[in-house]
Every structure is written in C-alpha cells, then in structure tokens.
C-alpha cells in the first residue's frame, strides 16, 4: 500500500502530520534532540511564555498519582524575548511547526506576548493558555469565564496575524460554552484539555504534597475524561480541534482523533519515554496502513455513536 496521507489542516495552519507535543512537557524542543528527530513531528508547542521571565513556584512542584501526575510549576519560563532571541533561531531550523504557548495575568500581558511573536520568522501559530488566574478579576481563571475568554481571544486575534489556537480548560463550568466563546471571538482552532485541578495529601506530614496546595492533573488517568470532552466540543463547535490528555501511544491518539480531534498533542508521555511522540506517529501510520485508510483525515470524528447510547 502507498504511504497514508498524514497531512492535516487546522484552519490556516497546515501540519505535515497530526502529532504535536504539548506545552510544558517538551521544554523549548531542543532538549529532545538526543532522543528523537524533531523533523519527524507535526509540530512542537513550547513552554508557556510570559512578557518577562518568571521564577515559578517553590518546590514541591510535582507528585505522581495513580496513572498521572500533579504539577504546579508556576509557569517558570525564560520570557518571550529570550525565547525569540535564544530558542527560536535554533528551533526553526527543524522542519516542524513551532507553536508558541502564551499566557498572562492580565489581558494586556497576553496581547504584549502575542504582538512580540507576531512577526517572528519560523513561528507557525500561537496557542493561548487561558488556565491562568486573571489578576484583574479576582484571580478567576480566564478560561472559566466565557466573557473574559472571549475578550482575551479577541484581543490576541487583533495582536497577531498568526493562526490562533485557544487551549480550553477542563475546569470550566461548561467547556462547550467556553469553546463557543473562543470560536465566536476569532480562534482558528481549539486545543483541549489542559490539566484538571487536583490535590495530593502527604498523610504523614498532614499537608498537601505540593507547595501550592493544588496542582494540575495530567497523564493517562485523565484520558477518558479528555476524550469525552473532545467529543462534546466536537459536536458543539465547528472549529478544528487538537486533542490531548494522557496520550501514551497511537491507540490513545486514535481515541481523540475518532472523537473529533484533527491533531493531537503528546504531553506527560514525553517525560516517561522521551521519544514517545515519534512512536505515536509511527504506530499511527501503521494503524492506517493496517486498516487500509488513505488519509488520517478520514478518521477525524468518525466515531460511530451507538444506537442505544445516550444522546
């Protein structure tokens, strides 16, 4: 059989294959050069960028939980300027879509980062991390308030001509409402999900393990929840989706694709197996060959909903 066609389109963003790496789990990409060929990847989403460098939270920042982990890194990052001058030049040498993940504590900070990224050569898209407390609105996360989410999306839309991806939080009261707010405000695509808020307790010391008390849950534990949210958003909103949450192998990636994701991101798996993303890609291709499927696009949302099922 001829090689299956892996190309996918997320609105204006064209990818040579649907396998990306998730923000915060792949550093600035370059750290993975010993483990895999970056040229193989559909894209790389770098660690979240803020206007200025950030130190992040004190330890403990991470803890393992059953089939998952909690993290409260506190968005430590080099800042957008250092990213542009020190990281991007090396990264754009690879044949992969470089996507900048952006966050802010105010609308102005989001806009500032987007504007700086706007003209950057070798940048393929911007992904907005809206799971960040809005300090001007009492600390409620942007992503949990559809109006704030719409405002930040619209402002970033105006600040950059790059394809705009909005990354949804699973902690929003209604993720479909959030999806619609982003869709109506100029997003080209949606990615989902970010981490779920959780807590682990050190029962010997009788305090939370993490210094921040809570952290974001990622890894295989959340996959059934994330697949379900992907399918819900897929049926609610006409935008292309990027699915993630606990993808360890191609089988898991296919769950998201069948549930409506045009592309997927590999996150926590990168920590466990540094070449996880390339393995996902290889095995995805093998699946298409085995099933005689000419293009991965045929599978997007191709889940057959059982007759007996709930609507």
């Amino acid at each position, binding site marked *: 059989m001829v090689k299956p066609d892996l190309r996918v389109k997320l609105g204006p963003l064209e990818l040579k294959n649907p396998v990306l790496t998730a923000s*915060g*789990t*792949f*550093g600035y990409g370059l*750290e*993975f050069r*010993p*483990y895999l060929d970056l040229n193989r990847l559909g894209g790389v989403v770098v*660690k979240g960028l803020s206007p*200025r*460098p*950030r*130190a*992040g939270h*004190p*330890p*403990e*920042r*991470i*803890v*393992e939980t*059953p*089939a*998952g*982990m909690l*993290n409260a*890194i506190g968005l*430590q990052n080099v*800042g957008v300027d250092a990213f542009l001058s020190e990281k991007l030049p090396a990264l754009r040498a690879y044949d992969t879509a470089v996507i900048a993940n952006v966050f802010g504590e105010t609308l102005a900070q989001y806009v500032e980062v987007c504007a700086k990224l706007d003209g950057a050569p070798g940048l393929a898209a911007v992904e907005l991390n809206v799971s960040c407390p809005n300090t001007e609105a009492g600390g409620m996360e942007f992503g949990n308030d559809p109006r704030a989410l719409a405002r930040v999306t619209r402002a970033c839309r105006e600040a950059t001509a790059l394809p705009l991806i909005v990354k949804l939080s699973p902690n929003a009261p209604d993720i479909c409402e959030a999806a619609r707010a982003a869709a109506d405000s100029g997003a080209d695509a949606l990615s989902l999900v970010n981490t779920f808020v959780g807590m682990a307790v050190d029962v010997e010391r009788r305090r939370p393990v993490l210094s921040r008390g809570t952290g974001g849950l990622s*890894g*295989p534990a959340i996959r059934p929840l994330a697949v379900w949210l992907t399918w819900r958003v897929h049926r609610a909103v006409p935008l292309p989706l990027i699915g993630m949450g606990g993808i360890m192998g191609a089988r898991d990636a296919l769950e998201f694709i069948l549930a409506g994701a045009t592309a997927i991101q590999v996150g*926590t798996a*990168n*920590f*466990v*197996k*540094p*070449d996880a993303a390339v393995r996902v890609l290889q095995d995805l291709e093998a699946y298409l060959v085995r099933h005689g499927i000419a293009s991965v696009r045929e599978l997007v949302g191709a889940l057959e909903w059982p007759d007996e099922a709930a609507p």
Partner: protein
Amino acid sequence: MPYDLEAPVTRNTDLGHGNFLIEFEAPEIVGCMKPAQFFMIGVPGSKLLLRRPFSVCGLPGTFDDGRPGSAQVLYKVVGEGTALLASLRAGARLEVLGPLGRGFEAPEPGRRALFLAGGIGVAPFPAFAAALRREGREVGLLYGARTAGDLPLLEWFERVCAPVEVATEDGSRGRRGLVTALLEELLRKEDPSAFHVYACGPQPMLKAVAQWARRHDVRCDLSLEARMACGFGVCLGCVVPTRGSGPEGDVGFERVCVEGPVMRAERLAW
C-alpha cells in the same frame, strides 16, 4: 549524550535493612557515565507512571565482581518504586535513561577528597572513590546513619578509603551523633583548605554541611535529590532555590536534573 535503553538485570543483592545493590547491563550508558551522574529507571508494565532517579554507584572498575558493561545502583526501599525494584530477579528488564545530570569533579591538585554520606546518600561515592584511588588521590569518608544497619557498603569503603569514620544516631556503630560532628572534629585537627568536601544525604544534613562550608570557606559540593518527572530538564519539577538564578539576578530556581544533581554548596539559597 544520554541513551534510553532496555537493560537486563544481572543481579539484585539484598544488603539487609532494606538496602539493595542492583546490577544491570547498559554498556552504551556506562561507557560515558561519570560518578554522581544518575539514571532514570522504570520497570516495564509496572503501575508507576514515572521513572525514578538513582545515582550510579558502581561503574566498571568500581567493584571487583562487577560485570563489564554493567552499572550498579545502591538503593533503599522507601516506597512503591523501590519496593518494586527490590522484587526483581536476574533476567528482569529495566528501562534505563542515562547518563543524566552533572557529576562530581575531581578535587584540585593538592586537595584531598572528603566524602560526607548520610545513610543511603553514600550511593554515589563508590564509583567516585574508585576512580580517585586509581589516580592515586587520597579519599576520606565520614559516614553517618541512624543505626548500624543503615551503613551499606561500609566494609567496601574501609578497604578503599582512609580515614573512614562512622557516626550513628543511636550509637550502635562508631560515634554516637551526627556525621556533621565528625566533620567539625576532623577539620579542627586539619586545615580545611586542604580538602574538597562532597556531601550526599538527607536534606537537613546537606543544609547543615552547606552552612558549615560557607562559614569555614571550604570548597563543598552537594549531590542533591528532588522529586523528578523527566530527569532531563523539561518538566521543571525538580528545582531547588539558588542564588543569582532568578529573573532579576535574585534567588531563582534551578533544575536538580540538569544544573545538578551536584551543585556547589554556596549556590543553594536554603
């Protein structure tokens, strides 16, 4: 350059009191590994998602009965991952990523190496001791633990290093008290600037040593521990506060897995 390999276990020796020495074959990794660098080790099919960090304890040439192309790891059972390791037999397979992190640097010419170990914190020292002794360097060990059973490999060190002094909190072996007392005592008799101190052990011990080294201006390197998810710098989970690394040159956070595990004591902002 690190490798991610499946490594067969060649033996897994119970040293008593929950301490084990496991040996596995990983020639590519072992060939370019330095003392106090570490591995991320996983057990395929186990219920643990993340691998666990372990220092290299023995490299080819460290232990007389070590196999070529193999490394030894000294570990203590403290939780699920280490309990799982302890259940493995020869023939089992590990997922091993390494070498990772920055290892020990040899002392400047003329300085003597002095190791400070707290319990299982002794793990990174055998490979380093053997390498230094091969170059004819002098190596001393101050070894502290809660009780006599928590002093794995003590006999080995007594053959290779001098002096070897022991302190236990319950007095069941050597001096009663903490290892830092041994340090103060030794360096009251000798000139501190003749030494390069290397310390590994529980955090309270390392903090005490770091303070002491700052006070006496002794060159001191610590081999640190932290919870790790990746081991190669991308999760930012394993940080410690260090001076001068912050966004404005203030206290910031550095990664134990990349900027460490060996860090100069005075850099830590504890």
